[in-house]
């Protein structure tokens, strides 16, 4: 596709359930970021993948959060045992190698934990 895509666009789940959020980056982009944006807040860095290097997981808020990137392309962010404070918009961005400043964002997944 022409841009970064994310699915689902909206997810409502019950507290304690696991959720998986998917990101398809722009073809050829080697770097992929996950961010979280709570209502009225800026973007909070979660995790960063670059090629085959070990991901930078320093922004993950707890061990309930994990992410993987298969084949250097599609990425899945998993939140286990969701809590109400996990409710937010989860944004994915991808960039070309060496051009990390120009991040192309997907439309995000709005997660609501009841």
């Amino acid at each position: 596709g022409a841009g970064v895509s994310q699915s689902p666009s909206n997810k409502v789940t019950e507290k304690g359930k696991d959720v998986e959020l998917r990101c398809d980056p722009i073809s050829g982009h080697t770097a992929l970021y996950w961010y979280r944006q709570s209502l009225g807040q800026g973007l909070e860095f979660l995790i960063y993948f670059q090629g085959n290097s070990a991901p930078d997981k320093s922004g993950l808020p707890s061990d309930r959060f994990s992410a993987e990137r298969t084949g250097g392309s599609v990425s899945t962010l998993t939140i286990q045992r969701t809590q109400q404070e996990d409710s937010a918009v989860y944004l994915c961005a991808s960039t070309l190698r060496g051009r990390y400043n120009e991040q192309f964002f997907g439309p995000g997944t709005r997660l609501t934990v009841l």
Partner: protein
Amino acid sequence: EDKVVQSPLSLVVHEGDTVTLNCSYEVTNFRSLLWYKQEKKAPTFLFMLTSSGIEKKSGRLSSILDKKELFSILNITATQTGDSAVYLCAVEEPSGTYKYIFGTGTRLKVLA
């Protein structure tokens, strides 16, 4: 702790007005500052600034960085209703981490 602060938090203006949005930062070993426009969910890239005093311009939008006073401004002249959005500022963390610290944004509403 590194941080990015934007002001004002929100702003309401009328079409044709000029606005100035502010972004101040405290980041060790500054590398670059980015501005994004977020209309619905996906932020779109506006500018990247690395050097002091050099204005970046795109149509009615312009931005400049002051590395001595640690801030940047984003100017929008002759505002239009389509400029209504949240404007985000982000600063790259040092040491080649390729991570960015985002401010909470300025919500701009332009009235017809």
